[in-house]
């Protein structure tokens, strides 16, 4: 199981999901209401490192963060 955190305006509590890669996690999150619509514009970090690799493997206990569009300053 990995823990998925939804940052900023997504406003969802963390979820535990079983997934071996980011691609598998994407399949699972697509079906979650209030989350699916953010996937196309959100960036992703595994254990606080940004990644753009859909094939990145996930291990038990990993933390995946979903970062929606930003506007600092």
């Amino acid at each position, binding site marked *: 199981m990995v823990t998925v955190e939804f940052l900023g305006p997504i406003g969802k509590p963390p979820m535990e999901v079983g997934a071996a890669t980011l691609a598998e*996690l994407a399949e699972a999150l697509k079906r979650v209401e209030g989350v699916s619509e953010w996937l196309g*514009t959100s960036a992703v970090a595994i254990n*606080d490192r940004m990644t753009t690799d859909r094939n990145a493997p996930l291990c038990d206990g990993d933390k995946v963060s979903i970062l929606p569009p930003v506007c600092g300053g």
Partner: protein
Amino acid sequence: MELYDGALDVKAIFGRWLDENHQSNYGAYIPFIGIIREEGGIEALSFDIYEPILRAWFEGWEARAVERGAIVKFAHAIGDVPVHTSSYISAVFSPQRRVALELIDLFVEDFKANAPIWKYDVIGGKRIYAEDRSTPMAGAGVLGE
């Protein structure tokens, strides 16, 4: 990197950064001060920050600045920041004018585009995500399609 609850004390931060580098022999100091504009009926802006990735982003910038003999600084607010007060200060110190002018521009623009910070309008005490002013971070959409 400095994070504060609510509006920044601009003069205190500006002065402290100046004093800290008093003997560093930098020739140019360029701060960028972001101030909340009164517009669209807002009483404040409000900010969420994800600190671990913000720190990593900033460390990347510190390394890039050092390569050019410069240093970068920033302070940002968390939570509500009333109109006409400051939510954000960035700065560059550099021996050279040109390096400082180039870096402050790149640094401020990349901050806007890639620092993990979320902005909300505060209107009538309600917090509304500033969706129209927000942009996907570099590499966004990995989980899309």
